[in-house]
């Protein structure tokens, strides 16, 4: 693996994109972030985790936040530093309370076809925090951290 290199292109390191609420727009944004990770020598496991987290955050922002109204925008901000990757996703919806989302890993919810996005983000990123109204999520993945942030065993029943 190459030596980690600090992002010196921008003093803060943040890049920002504004996406329409269109699911087909997600892939290109992911590619740009992932190529930046590859440039700085982040490994495949980390790139998989970050891709999954971005995908789930953008899907949630478009589907649940913006209710698939294409005129509404989603803001994706990211910075890739030597020691960590930070992602912010904000939608124009009314927000929500993450604590109210049912745990999709418990037996009675396993057959539900949706509701796994937040759980995946929390599992694969090291830090996931929401703004007070839930319309913006901030995620951090540290270089070299395990692919999964925590095993789900503790929450099984």
């Amino acid at each position, binding site marked *: 693996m190459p030596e980690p290199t600090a992002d010196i292109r921008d003093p803060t390191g943040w890049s920002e994109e504004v996406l329409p609420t269109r699911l087909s727009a*997600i892939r290109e944004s992911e590619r740009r972030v992932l190529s930046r990770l590859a440039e700085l020598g982040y490994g495949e496991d980390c790139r*998989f985790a970050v891709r999954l987290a971005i995908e*789930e955050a953008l899907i949630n922002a478009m589907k649940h936040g913006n209710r698939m109204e294409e005129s509404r925008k989603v803001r994706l901000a990211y910075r890739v530093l030597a020691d960590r990757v930070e992602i912010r996703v904000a939608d124009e919806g009314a927000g929500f309370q993450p604590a109210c989302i049912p745990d999709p890993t418990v037996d009675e919810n*396993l*057959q539900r*076809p949706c509701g796994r*996005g937040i759980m*995946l983000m929390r599992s694969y990123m090291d830090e996931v925090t929401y703004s007070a109204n839930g319309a913006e999520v901030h995620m951090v993945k540290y270089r070299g951290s395990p692919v999964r942030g925590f*095993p789900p065993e503790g929450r*099984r029943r």
Partner: protein
Amino acid sequence: MKAYVRQEGSCQVVVVEGSADVAASARLREVLLGALDAGATQIVCDLSKTDFISSDALGVLITAYLKVHGRGGFLRLANPQPRLRELLQTTRLDHLFDVYPDVASAAEGA
């Protein structure tokens, strides 16, 4: 992502190649539900060449699983690669789907 169906014995094998991301889940839904509409009751999803799967595509698999179980059939997963296997464990969907090391054993259920 490329998704297609091939017949193997009495099973319809749905092969998923590449990334089953949200942009590709419509195609996955079309292929899987198309097989169900054509009367398939024994489905094996070959994940050996699947390098990514989003929650949206997982939802498609679950929907198809429920439909095929409702008519007394099965939908089994074959040969997910390590990152996908771990994702199935993380979501505990390995407790919903039967996961096999290859298509042949998935088709046999052994």
